[in-house]
């Protein structure tokens, strides 16, 4: 093996672009490994860990780009570097304009003075400063960046509230504002349901289900997972809920979050009780009866939150897209060829929901992100027993793109699970929408076929599709791709997990 590299000083690309290109080039014949990244501490560590570090990297800054390839021979490595450069060059071209892109938020604002939203996905250490600039210029912020400290979050949200500007985040992956999906969000029709959520895939699952049930939304406001913590005090949840309460287009309000801190819950309930509109609450893992006792409509899961919101928004009853009988019919005759369940999720909240429903049935269940009652996996890269894994968690995404964007690791893992004689039932999610991979179903099916061929076995497989028929991926095509490969397909995570329950009960 040989290592070839090139340094491009003062050349900056965003991490997703670099990780995706690195991952694509790694698939070329003769390539063993690639590190395509800015010279950050993390990338330096990765290069050292992979024994690819070169003395020429000493003294570089996070504004310098490294393309480093390990391949079977020098010619192959050099050709891969050329390929990376070619792909990067195509990314740098400003689409539809000969004008060079602006190099700062201020320059961008000069080009679009009436911009009212700043979407920030820069490395976390720079995110708070960029957010402050945006807020001080009177613009709302969607803050996709993670690694923003809670102290910084408090500071920017306090500023946002003082100016009555949204700070959606940090680590906020999904929002639909005034009909515009931002970052990872689905194409959802306009309607009269307003949502506030501290859960990205939770918000995608509920908004997509609302759309498929024939209803629509006014706003889907992400607030970041820590908004209802004691330290942040629910600043954005309270501001967004108040605005939805005053919004004449919003008839029903939906709140999605992990259970808030006790002190925040009191303030929140006091605020919500002053609102005359119907409010549906799903505090993931909390007792619905306690919510109902406060006078609100409590949901039991994400699908249920969507159904209840649709009922209240139309004064008509809605049913799950698949009835219990249809799920039972899907499970009839399904035989598990191994004892254990394996869940490979790209959506964190969906992974959480599956654990919550299945743990009481299977008893010992492991996860890299275990909920109460589940076990922490001793090795997240190797499954034993029943496992439900969030592949979007930091364990798997440090230095790599999220599995909704880059299917490489999930494909590798599903191939491995399919070949494991202990794996009898494999569940996974296919999250559609803007920002997500354009053919996740195709990528998963290819990996499954490879695994089945290598191990000469076919475990039971089930997938749920989180998305709408208006999403860029073509919902029906994704569904057909999965079904043709013998995979059972469900419209929601809850339906898929109920199917899994039936299969596990039968094979006990």
């Amino acid at each position, binding site marked *: 093996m040989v290592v070839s590299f090139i340094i491009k000083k*003062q050349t900056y690309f965003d991490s997703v672009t670099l990780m995706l290109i690195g991952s694509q080039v790694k698939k070329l014949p003769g390539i063993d490994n690639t590190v395509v990244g800015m010279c950050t501490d993390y990338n330096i560590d990765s290069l050292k860990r992979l024994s690819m570090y070169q003395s020429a990297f000493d003294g570089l*800054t996070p504004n310098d780009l490294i393309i480093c390839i390990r391949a079977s021979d020098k010619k192959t490595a050099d050709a891969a570097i050329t390929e990376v450069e070619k792909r990067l060059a195509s990314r740098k071209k400003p689409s539809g304009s000969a004008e060079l892109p602006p190099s700062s938020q201020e320059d961008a604002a000069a080009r679009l003075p009436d911009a009212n939203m700043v979407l920030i996905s820069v490395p976390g250490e720079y995110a708070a400063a960029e957010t402050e600039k945006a807020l001080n210029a009177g613009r709302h912020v969607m803050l996709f960046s993670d690694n923003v400290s809670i102290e910084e979050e408090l500071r920017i949200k306090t500023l946002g509230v003082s100016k009555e500007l949204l700070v959606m985040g940090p680590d906020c992956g999904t929002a639909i504002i005034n009909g515009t999906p*931002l970052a990872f969000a689905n194409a959802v029709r306009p309607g009269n349901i307003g949502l506030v959520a501290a859960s990205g895939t939770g918000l995608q699952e509920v908004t997509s289900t609302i759309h498929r049930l024939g209803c629509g939304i006014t706003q889907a406001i992400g607030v970041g997972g820590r908004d209802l913590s004691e330290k942040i005090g629910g600043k954005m949840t309270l501001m967004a809920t108040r605005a939805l309460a005053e919004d004449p287009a919003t008839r029903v309000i939906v709140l999605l979050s992990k259970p808030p801190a006790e002190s925040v819950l009191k303030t929140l309930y006091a605020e919500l009780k002053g609102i005359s509109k119907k409010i549906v609450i799903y505090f993931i893992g909390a007792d619905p009866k306690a919510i109902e006792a406060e006078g609100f409509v409590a949901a039991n899961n994400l699908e249920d939150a969507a159904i209840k919101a649709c009922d209240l928004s139309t004064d008509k009853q809605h049913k799950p897209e698949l009835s219990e009988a249809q799920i039972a019919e899907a499970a009839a005759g399904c035989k598990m060829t191994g004892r254990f369940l394996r869940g490979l999720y790209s959506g964190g909240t969906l992974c959480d929901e599956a654990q919550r429903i299945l743990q009481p049935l299977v008893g010992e269940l492991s996860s890299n992100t275990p909920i109460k009652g589940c076990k922490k996996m001793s090795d997240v890269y190797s499954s034993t027993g029943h496992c439900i894994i969030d592949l979007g968690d930091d364990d798997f995404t440090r230095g790599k793109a999220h599995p909704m964007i880059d299917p490489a690791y999930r494909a590798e893992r599903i191939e491995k699970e399919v070949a494991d004689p202990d794996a009898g039932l494999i569940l996974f999610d296919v999250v559609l929408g803007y920002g997500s991979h354009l053919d996740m179903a195709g990528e998963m099916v290819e990996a499954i076929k490879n695994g089945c061929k290598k191990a000469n076995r076919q475990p039971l497989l089930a997938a749920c599709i989180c998305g709408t028929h208006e999403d860029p991926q073509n919902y029906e095509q994704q569904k057909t791709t999965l079904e043709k490969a013998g995979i059972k397909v469900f419209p929601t995570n809850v339906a898929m997990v109920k199917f899994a329950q039936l299969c596990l009960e039968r094979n006990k």
Partner: protein
Amino acid sequence: MLKDFFGKKVKVINLGIASFADDLRKQGVETVHTDWRPPAGGNKKIQALLTKVANWQSKVKSAKGAR
């Protein structure tokens, strides 16, 4: 007021992941993508000073506006 923003056309400045801007443009959303890079060549000390100056400028601007 936040509620006054509801219903308005969203116009976006994108900082960071370029594909987010591509998706917005495909939907016909007016978007300017910024060729963002760490300020001050990644030098943390100079960045902290620049942030202080920017915050001070913003306070001066607000104070002038309030007069």
